[in-house]
């Protein structure tokens, strides 16, 4: 019997699951190593997840519209609600009001949170862009508003040639 889209996503998420950040960050902080491994681990997981999502939804185009769709599905599957701000041929920006980093323990300093925020967003967004747009075809930046205690975090994806 053919599985529904929801079932397929569930299987995909079971197969490719990220480590709970509120647990892994204190472990790596204490060990004083493992950041590169975490970055590679997240890149691998998010690449596999994105490939799976593309396959399930039949998304083949290598453009910003597809990237926007994939971002919405991936973040949605992770329980994130996104608010798209801008979508053009070369740019996609959105805002999110919740992020896993917010749930990392209070005893973890803002500097450490900021470091891991960069590490996770860099590898996650790179995995998404490499899988959808092609290797090194896009860049992503974010304003870290959420961990600074401001309302929403803004993420911007851009094609490399436009910058």
């Amino acid at each position: 019997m053919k599985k529904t889209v929801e079932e397929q996503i569930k299987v995909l998420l079971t197969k490719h699951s990220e480590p709970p950040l509120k647990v892994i960050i204190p472990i790596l902080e204490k060990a004083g190593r493992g950041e590169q491994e975490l970055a590679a681990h997240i890149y691998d997981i998010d690449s596999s997840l994105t490939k799976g999502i593309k396959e399930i939804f039949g998304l083949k185009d290598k453009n910003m519209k597809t990237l926007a769709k994939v971002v919405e599905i991936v973040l949605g599957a992770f329980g994130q609600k996104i608010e798209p701000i801008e979508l053009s041929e070369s740019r996609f920006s959105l805002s999110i009001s919740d992020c896993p980093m917010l749930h990392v323990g209070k005893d973890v300093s803002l500097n450490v949170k900021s470091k891991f925020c960069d590490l996770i967003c860099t590898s996650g967004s790179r995995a998404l862009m490499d899988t959808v747009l092609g290797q090194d075809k896009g860049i992503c930046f974010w304003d870290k508003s959420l961990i600074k205690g401001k309302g929403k975090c803004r993420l911007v994806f851009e094609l490399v040639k436009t910058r």
Partner: protein
Amino acid sequence: MSYLKNSLFLISICLVAVGIVFILVWLNTTESIRYADFQTVLTTTTATFGTMLGIITAGLMFTQGKFSELASELSEKSTDYLAKVLSLEKIQTIENHLLVLRKTFIDLAATTTINEERDLYERITVKASSIFVNFAALLNLKLKQQGLPDTGLIVSEMDSNLYRLYEKRRKSIRKDWQIFNIIKEIVDIWEAPTAFFTEKSGRKSALHADLKGSVSLLELKEKVDRSSTIRSEVVKMLSNLIDELGKISKRLHEDRIPQLLFQMEQASTLRGKYFYLALIFIAAPLLINLIILPQLSETTITFFKQIISITSLLSVMGVIFLLLYIHKILNV
């Protein structure tokens, strides 16, 4: 939540109305009222209480009927569940997996020095133990039904706390349909919520999600330490549990068991809380009225004046509870 707010709003309106009526009645009774008027008031409130009691009784019979209908529907299904969905072999396999997981995570929790990591492993142990106990109770019932002896192997794996929980679960299955309360609890502990990346504070995470997170964590630790852990064993157990418990959960939802259990819970609440509430506000004053009525004369009227005003007030409250009761019945 909105339902609760709605009920609170209704009750506050009712209480304000009752307050106004009470003041009006109190003011009126201080004035001199004729004997005939009192008799009319008393007869009317008695008749009102009597009618309300009749309606409440009819409502109770309806609710009881609904409850029995649901109970019999679930009882019919329970036979099939015990025979096919929860085969002896399946329960034993799941119990073995849970036992291995429990032992593994107890060991992992003992070896870590990071609080967050220990919390995760302990959470997994508690949840795995809870499902283990629930399946043990179902297994005990199944063995009894099939007339097979209980080897006590599963019970021997329990510590005193787990055994106490097991006994509680076992004794909670008095009717056939009650196995569904246990199965639903198992599925609720196991199943991951729709979104499970961002852990909302206060929301309990599912065992499935915690296990997935721990597998990913162990995988990363393997990469960092370049050593092998028990990850592959956990992955195997997780995969088997996803398969086995997934089938049970799927069937449970296909048969709409959670909805049926919810309806039963509602019918049971109606049968209990609302019925007794209404009964207190209707039957008690009705009884008082019936005692007063034969005593009522020109001379006793002053003595019973305040009591009659209170029972009249209670009849207003009785009507309010009756309306709430009917509203609830219509929603079952």
